[in-house]
Protein backbone atom coordinates (compact mmCIF):
# COMPACT_ATOMS: atom_id res chain seq x y z
CA UNK A 1 0.00 0.00 0.00
CA UNK A 2 2.80 2.41 0.98
CA UNK A 3 4.61 1.81 -2.33
CA UNK A 4 1.43 2.59 -4.25
CA UNK A 5 0.83 5.69 -2.18
CA UNK A 6 4.38 6.90 -2.98
CA UNK A 7 3.84 6.12 -6.68
CA UNK A 8 0.65 8.18 -6.90
CA UNK A 9 2.25 11.04 -4.92
CA UNK A 10 5.30 10.96 -7.21
CA UNK A 11 3.27 11.46 -10.37
CA UNK A 12 0.93 14.01 -8.81
CA UNK A 13 3.98 15.99 -7.79
CA UNK A 14 5.50 15.69 -11.27
CA UNK A 15 2.24 16.87 -12.85
CA UNK A 16 2.13 19.84 -10.50
CA UNK A 17 5.79 20.65 -11.09
CA UNK A 18 5.19 20.71 -14.84
CA UNK A 19 2.31 23.17 -14.40
CA UNK A 20 4.54 26.04 -13.33
CA UNK A 21 1.83 28.67 -13.84
CA UNK A 22 -0.58 26.74 -11.63
CA UNK A 23 2.08 26.27 -8.98
CA UNK A 24 2.99 29.95 -9.02
CA UNK A 25 -0.69 30.90 -8.75
CA UNK A 26 -1.08 28.67 -5.68
CA UNK A 27 1.70 30.62 -3.92
CA UNK A 28 0.88 34.10 -5.17
CA UNK A 29 -2.82 33.88 -4.42
CA UNK A 30 -2.63 33.95 -0.58
CA UNK A 31 0.08 36.61 -0.73
CA UNK A 32 -2.11 38.80 -2.93
CA UNK A 33 -5.05 38.46 -0.54
CA UNK A 34 -2.82 39.30 2.42
CA UNK A 35 -0.83 42.13 0.88
CA UNK A 36 -3.70 43.88 -0.86
CA UNK A 37 -7.11 43.02 0.59
CA UNK A 38 -5.88 42.07 4.08
CA UNK A 39 -3.44 44.95 4.52
CA UNK A 40 -5.84 47.45 2.93
CA UNK A 41 -8.77 46.54 5.20
CA UNK A 42 -6.47 46.19 8.22
CA UNK A 43 -6.08 49.94 8.22
CA UNK A 44 -9.87 50.39 8.31
CA UNK A 45 -11.23 47.58 10.46
CA UNK A 46 -10.65 46.36 14.00
CA UNK A 47 -12.59 43.34 15.22
CA UNK A 48 -13.98 43.68 18.77
CA UNK A 49 -15.44 40.78 20.65
CA UNK A 50 -16.43 41.65 24.23
CA UNK A 51 -13.42 43.29 25.84
CA UNK A 52 -11.00 41.89 23.25
CA UNK A 53 -9.98 43.63 20.06
CA UNK A 54 -8.16 41.92 17.20
CA UNK A 55 -6.62 43.46 14.12
CA UNK A 56 -8.16 42.53 10.78
CA UNK A 57 -5.07 40.58 9.57
CA UNK A 58 -5.33 38.26 12.59
CA UNK A 59 -9.01 37.79 11.87
CA UNK A 60 -8.62 37.17 8.13
CA UNK A 61 -5.43 35.04 7.98
CA UNK A 62 -7.03 31.69 8.96
CA UNK A 63 -9.80 32.46 6.46
CA UNK A 64 -7.26 33.09 3.70
CA UNK A 65 -5.66 29.72 4.50
CA UNK A 66 -9.13 28.14 4.29
CA UNK A 67 -9.67 29.85 0.95
CA UNK A 68 -6.45 28.27 -0.37
CA UNK A 69 -7.74 24.87 0.69
CA UNK A 70 -10.88 25.56 -1.33
CA UNK A 71 -8.60 26.43 -4.28
CA UNK A 72 -6.91 23.06 -3.85
CA UNK A 73 -10.34 21.46 -4.00
CA UNK A 74 -10.68 22.85 -7.52
CA UNK A 75 -7.14 21.64 -8.32
CA UNK A 76 -8.11 18.16 -7.06
CA UNK A 77 -11.22 18.17 -9.28
CA UNK A 78 -9.07 19.13 -12.30
CA UNK A 79 -6.56 16.35 -11.65
CA UNK A 80 -9.15 13.71 -10.82
CA UNK A 81 -11.23 14.56 -13.89
CA UNK A 82 -8.14 14.17 -16.09
CA UNK A 83 -7.33 10.88 -14.41
CA UNK A 84 -10.85 9.58 -14.93
CA UNK A 85 -11.51 11.11 -18.35
CA UNK A 86 -8.31 9.74 -19.87
CA UNK A 87 -8.46 6.31 -18.28
CA UNK A 88 -5.42 6.89 -16.02
CA UNK A 89 -7.38 6.11 -12.88
CA UNK A 90 -8.36 2.81 -14.51
CA UNK A 91 -4.77 2.16 -15.59
CA UNK A 92 -3.37 2.82 -12.12
CA UNK A 93 -6.01 0.84 -10.27
CA UNK A 94 -5.90 -2.06 -12.77
CA UNK A 95 -2.12 -2.23 -12.29
CA UNK A 96 -2.70 -2.79 -8.60
CA UNK A 97 -2.29 0.61 -6.91
CA UNK A 98 -5.46 -0.18 -4.95
CA UNK A 99 -8.19 2.21 -3.93
CA UNK A 100 -6.55 3.17 -0.67
CA UNK A 101 -3.14 3.91 -2.21
CA UNK A 102 -4.82 5.88 -4.98
CA UNK A 103 -7.06 7.97 -2.71
CA UNK A 104 -4.36 8.76 -0.15
CA UNK A 105 -1.81 9.49 -2.88
CA UNK A 106 -4.17 11.92 -4.61
CA UNK A 107 -4.86 13.76 -1.34
CA UNK A 108 -1.34 13.95 0.08
CA UNK A 109 0.19 16.48 -2.34
CA UNK A 110 -2.50 19.12 -1.53
CA UNK A 111 -1.54 18.78 2.16
CA UNK A 112 2.14 19.31 1.33
CA UNK A 113 1.14 22.30 -0.78
CA UNK A 114 -0.90 23.72 2.08
CA UNK A 115 2.11 23.42 4.39
CA UNK A 116 4.37 25.08 1.81
CA UNK A 117 1.85 27.89 1.26
CA UNK A 118 1.59 28.48 4.99
CA UNK A 119 5.38 28.60 5.42
CA UNK A 120 5.47 31.32 2.75
CA UNK A 121 2.40 33.31 3.78
CA UNK A 122 2.83 33.17 7.57
CA UNK A 123 5.89 35.47 7.77
CA UNK A 124 4.05 37.99 5.56
CA UNK A 125 1.00 37.81 7.82
CA UNK A 126 3.27 38.32 10.87
CA UNK A 127 4.85 41.32 9.18
CA UNK A 128 1.38 42.78 8.54
CA UNK A 129 0.31 42.44 12.17
CA UNK A 130 -0.67 38.84 12.94
CA UNK A 131 0.31 37.86 16.48
CA UNK A 132 2.97 35.14 16.54
CA UNK A 133 2.02 31.73 17.92
CA UNK A 134 4.05 28.66 17.04
CA UNK A 135 1.47 26.39 18.60
CA UNK A 136 -1.24 28.29 16.76
CA UNK A 137 0.63 27.87 13.44
CA UNK A 138 0.93 24.10 13.78
CA UNK A 139 -2.60 23.82 15.11
CA UNK A 140 -3.81 25.77 12.06
CA UNK A 141 -1.77 23.46 9.80
CA UNK A 142 -3.26 20.39 11.47
CA UNK A 143 -6.86 21.57 11.16
CA UNK A 144 -6.09 22.78 7.62
CA UNK A 145 -4.79 19.30 6.72
CA UNK A 146 -8.01 17.68 7.93
CA UNK A 147 -9.93 20.26 5.94
CA UNK A 148 -7.82 19.51 2.85
CA UNK A 149 -8.66 15.84 3.23
CA UNK A 150 -12.36 16.75 3.54
CA UNK A 151 -12.34 18.68 0.25
CA UNK A 152 -10.14 16.14 -1.55
CA UNK A 153 -12.43 13.26 -0.60
CA UNK A 154 -15.41 15.35 -1.65
CA UNK A 155 -13.65 15.98 -4.99
CA UNK A 156 -13.15 12.21 -5.50
CA UNK A 157 -16.86 11.62 -4.92
CA UNK A 158 -17.90 14.53 -7.13
CA UNK A 159 -15.69 13.54 -10.07
CA UNK A 160 -17.43 10.17 -10.11
CA UNK A 161 -20.46 12.03 -11.51
CA UNK A 162 -18.50 14.30 -13.85
CA UNK A 163 -18.45 12.85 -17.36
CA UNK A 164 -16.76 15.64 -19.32
CA UNK A 165 -14.95 18.97 -19.06
CA UNK A 166 -18.07 21.12 -19.48
CA UNK A 167 -19.71 19.34 -16.53
CA UNK A 168 -16.52 19.85 -14.56
CA UNK A 169 -16.44 23.57 -15.33
CA UNK A 170 -20.12 23.87 -14.45
CA UNK A 171 -19.56 22.15 -11.10
CA UNK A 172 -16.59 24.38 -10.32
CA UNK A 173 -18.43 27.55 -11.29
CA UNK A 174 -21.51 26.57 -9.29
CA UNK A 175 -19.50 25.55 -6.25
CA UNK A 176 -16.43 27.73 -5.88
CA UNK A 177 -17.82 31.26 -5.94
CA UNK A 178 -20.88 30.61 -3.72
CA UNK A 179 -18.79 28.60 -1.24
CA UNK A 180 -16.07 31.26 -1.15
CA UNK A 181 -18.38 34.27 -0.86
CA UNK A 182 -20.90 32.84 1.59
CA UNK A 183 -18.27 31.69 4.11
CA UNK A 184 -17.20 34.24 6.75
CA UNK A 185 -13.66 34.61 5.45
CA UNK A 186 -13.62 38.40 5.12
CA UNK A 187 -16.52 39.21 7.45
CA UNK A 188 -17.73 38.14 10.88
CA UNK A 189 -20.56 35.62 10.92
CA UNK A 190 -22.10 37.14 14.08
CA UNK A 191 -22.29 40.60 12.57
CA UNK A 192 -23.50 39.57 9.15
CA UNK A 193 -27.11 40.29 8.07
CA UNK A 194 -29.59 37.52 8.94
CA UNK A 195 -30.04 36.38 5.32
CA UNK A 196 -26.28 35.98 4.99
CA UNK A 197 -26.09 34.09 8.28
CA UNK A 198 -28.75 31.67 7.02
CA UNK A 199 -26.94 31.08 3.72
CA UNK A 200 -23.59 30.92 5.46
CA UNK A 201 -24.81 28.34 7.96
CA UNK A 202 -25.51 25.97 5.02
CA UNK A 203 -21.89 26.20 3.87
CA UNK A 204 -19.42 23.65 5.33
CA UNK A 205 -16.62 26.17 4.77
CA UNK A 206 -18.24 28.45 7.37
CA UNK A 207 -17.68 25.91 10.13
CA UNK A 208 -14.22 25.13 8.86
CA UNK A 209 -13.20 28.81 8.86
CA UNK A 210 -14.50 29.07 12.44
CA UNK A 211 -12.56 25.92 13.37
CA UNK A 212 -9.39 27.37 11.81
CA UNK A 213 -9.74 30.63 13.72
CA UNK A 214 -10.18 28.68 16.94
CA UNK A 215 -7.20 26.48 16.03
CA UNK A 216 -4.94 29.52 15.73
CA UNK A 217 -6.16 31.63 18.61
CA UNK A 218 -7.24 28.91 21.03
CA UNK A 219 -5.07 25.91 20.06
CA UNK A 220 -5.60 24.36 23.50
CA UNK A 221 -9.34 24.11 22.83
CA UNK A 222 -10.66 21.74 20.23
CA UNK A 223 -14.22 22.69 19.43
CA UNK A 224 -17.12 20.43 18.62
CA UNK A 225 -16.89 21.75 15.05
CA UNK A 226 -13.45 20.17 14.73
CA UNK A 227 -14.65 16.74 15.88
CA UNK A 228 -17.66 16.97 13.56
CA UNK A 229 -15.28 17.86 10.72
CA UNK A 230 -13.16 14.77 11.43
CA UNK A 231 -16.27 12.58 11.51
CA UNK A 232 -17.60 13.95 8.21
CA UNK A 233 -14.12 13.62 6.65
CA UNK A 234 -13.96 9.97 7.70
CA UNK A 235 -17.42 9.39 6.22
CA UNK A 236 -16.31 11.02 2.95
CA UNK A 237 -13.18 8.86 2.93
CA UNK A 238 -15.25 5.67 3.30
CA UNK A 239 -17.63 6.94 0.61
CA UNK A 240 -14.62 7.60 -1.70
CA UNK A 241 -13.50 3.98 -1.33
CA UNK A 242 -17.02 2.71 -2.01
CA UNK A 243 -17.42 5.09 -4.96
CA UNK A 244 -14.13 3.98 -6.53
CA UNK A 245 -14.75 0.29 -5.95
CA UNK A 246 -18.20 0.53 -7.54
CA UNK A 247 -17.11 2.81 -10.38
CA UNK A 248 -17.07 1.56 -13.93
CA UNK A 249 -14.07 3.40 -15.24
CA UNK A 250 -14.96 3.23 -18.91
CA UNK A 251 -18.49 2.66 -20.00
CA UNK A 252 -18.97 4.45 -23.28
CA UNK A 253 -16.84 2.23 -25.55
CA UNK A 254 -18.16 -1.12 -26.80
Amino acid at each position, binding site marked *: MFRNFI*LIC*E*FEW*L*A*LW*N*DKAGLLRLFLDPLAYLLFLGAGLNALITISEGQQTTNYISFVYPGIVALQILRMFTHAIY*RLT*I*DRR*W*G*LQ*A*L*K*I*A*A*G*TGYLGYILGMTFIPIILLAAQMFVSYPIALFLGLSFSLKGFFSLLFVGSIMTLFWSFLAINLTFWIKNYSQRDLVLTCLFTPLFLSAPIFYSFERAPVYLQIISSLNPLTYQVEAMRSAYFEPHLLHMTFYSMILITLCLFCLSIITLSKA*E*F*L*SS*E*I
Partner: protein
Amino acid sequence: MKKGISLKNLSKKYPNGILALNNVSLDLHYGELVGLIGPNGAGKSTLIHTIAGILQPSSGTIACFIDDPKDLAWVSQKSSIDWYLPVIDNVKLGARLGGCSIQEAKSIAKENVIKVGLEKESTQLPDSLSGGQQRRLQIARALAQNAKILILDEPTTGLDPFASKQFLSEIRNIANQGKLVLISSHDLHSLEGVVDRIVFLSEGTVKLDQEISNLLNSTSWISIEYEGEISSTVRNFLEQYRWEILTEKSIKITIENPQVLPRIFTFLIPQIDVTDIKLSRNNLHELYLSMNERK
Protein backbone atom coordinates in the same frame (compact mmCIF):
# COMPACT_ATOMS: atom_id res chain seq x y z
CA MET B 1 1.17 -24.06 -22.87
CA LYS B 2 0.35 -22.50 -19.51
CA LYS B 3 -3.01 -20.80 -19.34
CA GLY B 4 -2.85 -17.01 -19.01
CA ILE B 5 -6.49 -15.94 -19.16
CA SER B 6 -9.60 -18.06 -18.89
CA LEU B 7 -13.02 -16.63 -19.59
CA LYS B 8 -16.12 -18.67 -18.81
CA ASN B 9 -19.57 -17.66 -20.03
CA LEU B 10 -18.71 -13.99 -19.81
CA SER B 11 -21.53 -11.54 -20.45
CA LYS B 12 -21.68 -7.80 -20.11
CA LYS B 13 -24.85 -5.77 -20.33
CA TYR B 14 -24.55 -1.99 -20.09
CA PRO B 15 -27.07 0.02 -18.07
CA ASN B 16 -28.55 1.29 -21.36
CA GLY B 17 -29.53 -2.30 -22.20
CA ILE B 18 -26.84 -3.04 -24.79
CA LEU B 19 -25.58 -6.59 -24.50
CA ALA B 20 -21.93 -6.05 -25.42
CA LEU B 21 -20.71 -9.54 -24.54
CA ASN B 22 -22.84 -12.63 -24.72
CA ASN B 23 -21.59 -15.82 -23.11
CA VAL B 24 -17.96 -15.52 -24.19
CA SER B 25 -15.71 -18.43 -23.23
CA LEU B 26 -12.04 -18.36 -24.16
CA ASP B 27 -8.74 -19.75 -22.93
CA LEU B 28 -5.63 -17.75 -23.82
CA HIS B 29 -2.15 -19.09 -23.13
CA TYR B 30 1.27 -17.71 -22.30
CA GLY B 31 3.46 -17.46 -25.38
CA GLU B 32 0.47 -16.76 -27.62
CA LEU B 33 -0.13 -13.65 -29.66
CA VAL B 34 -3.89 -13.54 -30.14
CA GLY B 35 -5.59 -11.23 -32.62
CA LEU B 36 -9.05 -10.06 -31.65
CA ILE B 37 -10.98 -8.95 -34.70
CA GLY B 38 -14.55 -8.02 -35.46
CA PRO B 39 -16.69 -5.16 -36.75
CA ASN B 40 -17.16 -1.88 -34.88
CA GLY B 41 -19.41 -2.41 -31.88
CA ALA B 42 -18.67 -6.15 -31.77
CA GLY B 43 -17.64 -5.95 -28.10
CA LYS B 44 -13.84 -6.01 -28.53
CA SER B 45 -13.16 -3.02 -26.26
CA THR B 46 -15.66 -4.26 -23.70
CA LEU B 47 -13.92 -7.62 -23.66
CA ILE B 48 -10.52 -5.95 -23.24
CA HIS B 49 -11.75 -3.64 -20.48
CA THR B 50 -13.42 -6.54 -18.71
CA ILE B 51 -10.24 -8.63 -18.81
CA ALA B 52 -8.22 -5.60 -17.63
CA GLY B 53 -10.54 -5.45 -14.62
CA ILE B 54 -11.86 -1.97 -15.26
CA LEU B 55 -15.34 -3.13 -16.21
CA GLN B 56 -17.27 -5.62 -14.14
CA PRO B 57 -18.94 -8.46 -16.07
CA SER B 58 -22.69 -8.90 -15.67
CA SER B 59 -22.18 -12.66 -15.41
CA GLY B 60 -19.50 -15.27 -15.97
CA THR B 61 -15.95 -15.48 -14.68
CA ILE B 62 -12.53 -14.17 -15.65
CA ALA B 63 -9.39 -15.83 -14.38
CA CYS B 64 -6.05 -14.14 -15.02
CA PHE B 65 -3.20 -16.45 -14.02
CA ILE B 66 -0.80 -13.79 -12.75
CA ASP B 67 0.94 -13.30 -9.42
CA ASP B 68 0.33 -9.58 -9.21
CA PRO B 69 -2.04 -7.10 -10.92
CA LYS B 70 1.02 -5.25 -12.29
CA ASP B 71 1.66 -8.30 -14.50
CA LEU B 72 -1.22 -7.20 -16.70
CA ALA B 73 -0.65 -4.12 -18.87
CA TRP B 74 -3.30 -2.58 -21.03
CA VAL B 75 -3.37 0.03 -23.81
CA SER B 76 -6.68 1.78 -24.29
CA GLN B 77 -8.20 2.64 -27.64
CA LYS B 78 -8.47 6.22 -26.36
CA SER B 79 -5.47 8.43 -25.66
CA SER B 80 -4.90 7.37 -22.08
CA ILE B 81 -2.25 9.97 -21.32
CA ASP B 82 -1.49 12.36 -18.47
CA TRP B 83 -1.42 15.64 -20.35
CA TYR B 84 0.44 17.40 -17.52
CA LEU B 85 3.39 15.00 -17.69
CA PRO B 86 6.12 15.12 -20.35
CA VAL B 87 6.55 12.07 -22.60
CA ILE B 88 9.36 10.56 -20.51
CA ASP B 89 7.36 10.80 -17.27
CA ASN B 90 4.29 9.24 -18.88
CA VAL B 91 6.46 6.29 -19.89
CA LYS B 92 8.07 6.25 -16.46
CA LEU B 93 4.59 5.77 -14.99
CA GLY B 94 4.41 2.42 -16.81
CA ALA B 95 7.77 1.32 -15.40
CA ARG B 96 6.76 2.39 -11.87
CA LEU B 97 3.42 0.57 -12.19
CA GLY B 98 5.46 -2.46 -13.24
CA GLY B 99 7.27 -2.38 -9.91
CA CYS B 100 10.55 -0.62 -10.80
CA SER B 101 12.32 1.68 -8.38
CA ILE B 102 12.47 5.40 -9.24
CA GLN B 103 16.06 5.02 -10.58
CA GLU B 104 15.31 1.89 -12.61
CA ALA B 105 12.14 3.48 -13.98
CA LYS B 106 14.16 6.39 -15.37
CA SER B 107 16.43 4.16 -17.44
CA ILE B 108 13.59 1.85 -18.54
CA ALA B 109 11.52 4.86 -19.60
CA LYS B 110 14.43 6.22 -21.61
CA GLU B 111 14.99 2.85 -23.26
CA ASN B 112 11.33 2.53 -24.30
CA VAL B 113 11.06 6.12 -25.46
CA ILE B 114 13.98 5.37 -27.81
CA LYS B 115 12.38 2.06 -28.85
CA VAL B 116 9.21 3.83 -30.07
CA GLY B 117 11.18 6.67 -31.68
CA LEU B 118 10.15 9.49 -29.36
CA GLU B 119 13.57 10.42 -27.96
CA LYS B 120 13.47 13.90 -29.50
CA GLU B 121 10.05 14.53 -27.97
CA SER B 122 10.85 13.02 -24.56
CA THR B 123 10.71 16.32 -22.66
CA GLN B 124 7.67 17.66 -24.50
CA LEU B 125 4.14 17.63 -23.15
CA PRO B 126 1.89 15.11 -24.98
CA ASP B 127 -0.44 17.75 -26.47
CA SER B 128 2.38 18.78 -28.81
CA LEU B 129 2.56 15.24 -30.26
CA SER B 130 0.72 13.98 -33.33
CA GLY B 131 -1.97 11.29 -32.93
CA GLY B 132 0.44 8.56 -34.02
CA GLN B 133 3.10 9.78 -31.60
CA GLN B 134 0.57 9.79 -28.75
CA ARG B 135 -0.19 6.18 -29.65
CA ARG B 136 3.51 5.34 -29.56
CA LEU B 137 3.75 6.99 -26.17
CA GLN B 138 1.04 4.68 -24.81
CA ILE B 139 2.76 1.68 -26.35
CA ALA B 140 6.07 2.71 -24.75
CA ARG B 141 4.33 3.01 -21.38
CA ALA B 142 2.79 -0.47 -21.71
CA LEU B 143 6.15 -1.95 -22.76
CA ALA B 144 7.85 -0.22 -19.82
CA GLN B 145 5.47 -2.01 -17.46
CA ASN B 146 7.09 -5.30 -18.56
CA ALA B 147 3.91 -7.23 -17.80
CA LYS B 148 3.39 -10.94 -18.39
CA ILE B 149 0.05 -10.25 -20.08
CA LEU B 150 -0.28 -7.40 -22.53
CA ILE B 151 -3.74 -6.36 -23.73
CA LEU B 152 -3.78 -3.87 -26.57
CA ASP B 153 -6.92 -2.20 -27.88
CA GLU B 154 -6.29 -1.11 -31.48
CA PRO B 155 -2.71 -0.04 -30.77
CA THR B 156 -1.78 0.42 -34.41
CA THR B 157 -4.50 2.99 -35.13
CA GLY B 158 -2.82 6.19 -36.28
CA LEU B 159 0.60 4.60 -36.70
CA ASP B 160 2.36 4.93 -40.03
CA PRO B 161 2.99 1.60 -41.80
CA PHE B 162 6.64 1.51 -40.76
CA ALA B 163 5.87 2.19 -37.09
CA SER B 164 3.01 -0.32 -37.21
CA LYS B 165 5.27 -3.04 -38.64
CA GLN B 166 7.99 -2.25 -36.11
CA PHE B 167 5.50 -2.36 -33.24
CA LEU B 168 3.96 -5.66 -34.33
CA SER B 169 7.42 -7.17 -34.67
CA GLU B 170 8.18 -5.96 -31.12
CA ILE B 171 5.05 -7.59 -29.69
CA ARG B 172 5.85 -10.78 -31.64
CA ASN B 173 9.18 -10.82 -29.76
CA ILE B 174 7.33 -10.25 -26.49
CA ALA B 175 5.07 -13.25 -27.17
CA ASN B 176 8.12 -15.31 -28.14
CA GLN B 177 9.52 -14.57 -24.67
CA GLY B 178 6.58 -16.52 -23.24
CA LYS B 179 4.23 -13.63 -22.55
CA LEU B 180 0.60 -13.50 -23.54
CA VAL B 181 -0.42 -10.71 -25.92
CA LEU B 182 -4.02 -10.01 -26.88
CA ILE B 183 -4.34 -7.39 -29.59
CA SER B 184 -7.47 -5.99 -31.18
CA SER B 185 -7.00 -4.37 -34.55
CA HIS B 186 -8.61 -3.61 -37.89
CA ASP B 187 -5.20 -3.78 -39.57
CA LEU B 188 -5.83 -7.34 -40.76
CA HIS B 189 -2.99 -7.49 -43.25
CA SER B 190 -0.41 -6.68 -40.56
CA LEU B 191 -2.03 -8.99 -38.01
CA GLU B 192 -1.99 -11.92 -40.40
CA GLY B 193 1.79 -12.04 -40.43
CA VAL B 194 2.34 -11.99 -36.68
CA VAL B 195 -0.53 -13.52 -34.67
CA ASP B 196 -0.74 -17.16 -33.62
CA ARG B 197 -4.47 -17.23 -33.28
CA ILE B 198 -7.53 -15.29 -34.35
CA VAL B 199 -10.65 -14.67 -32.33
CA PHE B 200 -13.51 -13.18 -34.33
CA LEU B 201 -16.05 -11.41 -32.21
CA SER B 202 -19.40 -10.27 -33.54
CA GLU B 203 -22.44 -9.00 -31.67
CA GLY B 204 -20.75 -9.94 -28.42
CA THR B 205 -20.19 -13.60 -29.26
CA VAL B 206 -17.13 -15.51 -30.42
CA LYS B 207 -17.89 -16.55 -34.00
CA LEU B 208 -14.49 -18.04 -34.68
CA ASP B 209 -11.48 -19.00 -32.57
CA GLN B 210 -8.74 -20.75 -34.49
CA GLU B 211 -4.99 -20.86 -34.98
CA ILE B 212 -4.08 -18.62 -37.88
CA SER B 213 -2.04 -21.32 -39.67
CA ASN B 214 -4.98 -23.74 -39.68
CA LEU B 215 -7.37 -21.02 -40.58
CA LEU B 216 -5.53 -19.72 -43.60
CA ASN B 217 -4.33 -23.11 -44.84
CA SER B 218 -7.67 -24.81 -44.49
CA THR B 219 -9.74 -22.08 -45.98
CA SER B 220 -9.45 -21.07 -49.60
CA TRP B 221 -11.80 -20.31 -52.43
CA ILE B 222 -12.19 -21.07 -56.08
CA SER B 223 -13.70 -18.83 -58.67
CA ILE B 224 -15.15 -20.48 -61.73
CA GLU B 225 -15.95 -18.66 -64.94
CA TYR B 226 -18.33 -20.38 -67.33
CA GLU B 227 -20.46 -20.10 -70.47
CA GLY B 228 -24.17 -20.79 -70.58
CA GLU B 229 -26.42 -21.26 -67.54
CA ILE B 230 -26.17 -23.02 -64.19
CA SER B 231 -28.75 -25.80 -63.98
CA SER B 232 -30.85 -26.52 -60.92
CA THR B 233 -28.82 -29.75 -60.42
CA VAL B 234 -25.65 -27.65 -60.12
CA ARG B 235 -27.39 -25.22 -57.79
CA ASN B 236 -28.54 -28.08 -55.60
CA PHE B 237 -25.00 -29.46 -55.53
CA LEU B 238 -23.53 -26.07 -54.60
CA GLU B 239 -25.93 -25.61 -51.70
CA GLN B 240 -23.78 -27.91 -49.56
CA TYR B 241 -20.95 -25.33 -49.80
CA ARG B 242 -20.69 -21.61 -49.19
CA TRP B 243 -20.96 -20.13 -52.65
CA GLU B 244 -21.95 -16.89 -54.29
CA ILE B 245 -22.47 -15.46 -57.74
CA LEU B 246 -19.62 -13.06 -58.48
CA THR B 247 -20.68 -11.81 -61.91
CA GLU B 248 -23.18 -12.93 -64.48
CA LYS B 249 -20.82 -15.71 -65.61
CA SER B 250 -18.75 -16.49 -62.57
CA ILE B 251 -19.23 -18.03 -59.14
CA LYS B 252 -17.10 -18.26 -56.03
CA ILE B 253 -17.02 -21.31 -53.75
CA THR B 254 -15.38 -21.17 -50.34
CA ILE B 255 -13.42 -24.30 -49.54
CA GLU B 256 -12.90 -25.11 -45.88
CA ASN B 257 -11.36 -28.51 -46.55
CA PRO B 258 -9.06 -28.99 -49.57
CA GLN B 259 -10.09 -32.66 -49.79
CA VAL B 260 -13.44 -31.66 -51.28
CA LEU B 261 -11.80 -30.07 -54.34
CA PRO B 262 -11.64 -33.25 -56.51
CA ARG B 263 -15.31 -33.93 -55.77
CA ILE B 264 -16.29 -30.39 -56.79
CA PHE B 265 -14.29 -30.52 -60.00
CA THR B 266 -15.50 -34.01 -60.88
CA PHE B 267 -19.09 -32.90 -60.53
CA LEU B 268 -18.95 -29.42 -62.01
CA ILE B 269 -16.76 -29.84 -65.07
CA PRO B 270 -19.20 -32.13 -66.95
CA GLN B 271 -22.19 -30.02 -65.81
CA ILE B 272 -21.11 -26.51 -66.84
CA ASP B 273 -19.01 -25.09 -69.64
CA VAL B 274 -16.03 -23.95 -67.58
CA THR B 275 -13.79 -21.33 -69.21
CA ASP B 276 -11.50 -20.53 -66.29
CA ILE B 277 -10.81 -21.71 -62.76
CA LYS B 278 -8.82 -19.74 -60.15
CA LEU B 279 -7.85 -21.23 -56.82
CA SER B 280 -6.88 -18.74 -54.10
CA ARG B 281 -5.66 -19.19 -50.57
CA ASN B 282 -7.72 -17.17 -48.15
CA ASN B 283 -6.31 -14.22 -46.27
CA LEU B 284 -7.51 -12.63 -43.09
CA HIS B 285 -9.19 -9.83 -44.97
CA GLU B 286 -11.24 -12.26 -47.07
CA LEU B 287 -12.03 -14.29 -44.01
CA TYR B 288 -13.16 -11.20 -42.13
CA LEU B 289 -15.48 -10.19 -44.96
CA SER B 290 -16.93 -13.68 -45.24
CA MET B 291 -17.46 -13.86 -41.46
CA ASN B 292 -19.22 -10.52 -41.57
CA GLU B 293 -21.47 -11.72 -44.39
CA ARG B 294 -22.29 -14.89 -42.46
CA LYS B 295 -23.31 -13.20 -39.19
